[in-house]
């Protein structure tokens, strides 16, 4: 996978305060900033066992090399948060500023063994607040048109479908 044509954006991301929350079943879940040096191996592990049938538009990459290249690229270009249960990374959300730096593009994956516990929604609501604080104008994301479950969740957070012709482009404005 070639991740060229991204200029190096050294965006100054504000701090993210870690949050310990209970999932829907009362289990502790820590949501915190992703730290590349420390977390890289753990994140690779999550993606290595990620269910292929849940991949979306080429992500996560299938091979270990592809995963490494992707998350190394993300660490350089964006900001990530992770959900941790018993010291294991089970959810990952990343934002990367768009070319004009005004918006961020969002991608989220929750490991199949930890879905339907509200972890994804927790990550989403925390990052929306974070993006507002960071001063971004809005959040863009794209998913597959057939992924109605994800689209439903994004809509709950206020995302609107903006380009239904292609894949499903969605947008959440953060400013009036």
């Amino acid at each position: 996978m070639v991740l060229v044509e991204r200029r190096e954006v050294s965006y100054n991301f504000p701090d993210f305060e870690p949050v310990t929350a209970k999932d829907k079943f009362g289990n502790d879940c820590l949501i915190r900033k992703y730290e590349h040096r420390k977390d890289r191996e753990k994140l690779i592990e999550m993606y290595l066992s990620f269910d292929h049938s849940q991949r979306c538009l080429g992500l996560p990459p299938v091979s270990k090399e592809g995963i490494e290249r992707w998350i190394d690229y993300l660490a350089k270009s964006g900001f990530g948060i992770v959900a941790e249960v018993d010291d294991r990374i089970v959810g990952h959300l990343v934002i990367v500023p768009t070319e004009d730096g005004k918006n961020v593009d969002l991608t989220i994956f929750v490991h199949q063994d930890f879905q339907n516990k509200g972890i994804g929604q927790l990550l989403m609501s925390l990052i929306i607040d974070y993006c507002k604080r960071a001063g971004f104008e809005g959040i863009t994301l794209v998913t597959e048109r057939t992924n109605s479950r994800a689209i439903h969740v994004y809509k709950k957070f206020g995302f609107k479908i903006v380009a239904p012709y292609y894949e499903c482009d969605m947008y959440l404005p953060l400013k009036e």
Partner: protein
Amino acid sequence: MAIVVALDKKSLRSERVLEFALKEAKLRNEKLFFVHSLFGKEKTKAEEVIEGEKLLEWAAEQAKREGIEFEKHLLIRGKEPAEDVIEFANDVAASMIIIGVRKRRPTGKVLFGSVAQEIILNAAQPVVCIK
């Protein structure tokens, strides 16, 4: 004969599309038709029209600089983009269509785009896809 160049959005890819189109026009000694398709009516915002015009103007300027004959057309005819581009290509008896395919979002998701697919599948002319 003419080459139809379908432009969707200013990006590094559209720069590559344009670069290829300019070279190809010189090589074949053919005219370029830059097109950008919008649906119109309630499906199209005023800003999209402005963006579209800017995009075409950007392409036009470079063609001018290179001394290549061209026309630019902002298509707002109540048509979906693929159908619009294909119909336009037939109307001007195009010899080929140049489009951009395979975008990558900032977080890495890969898009092929149904418009590109539809043009490739349904156009009567050869379609060159620029990655």
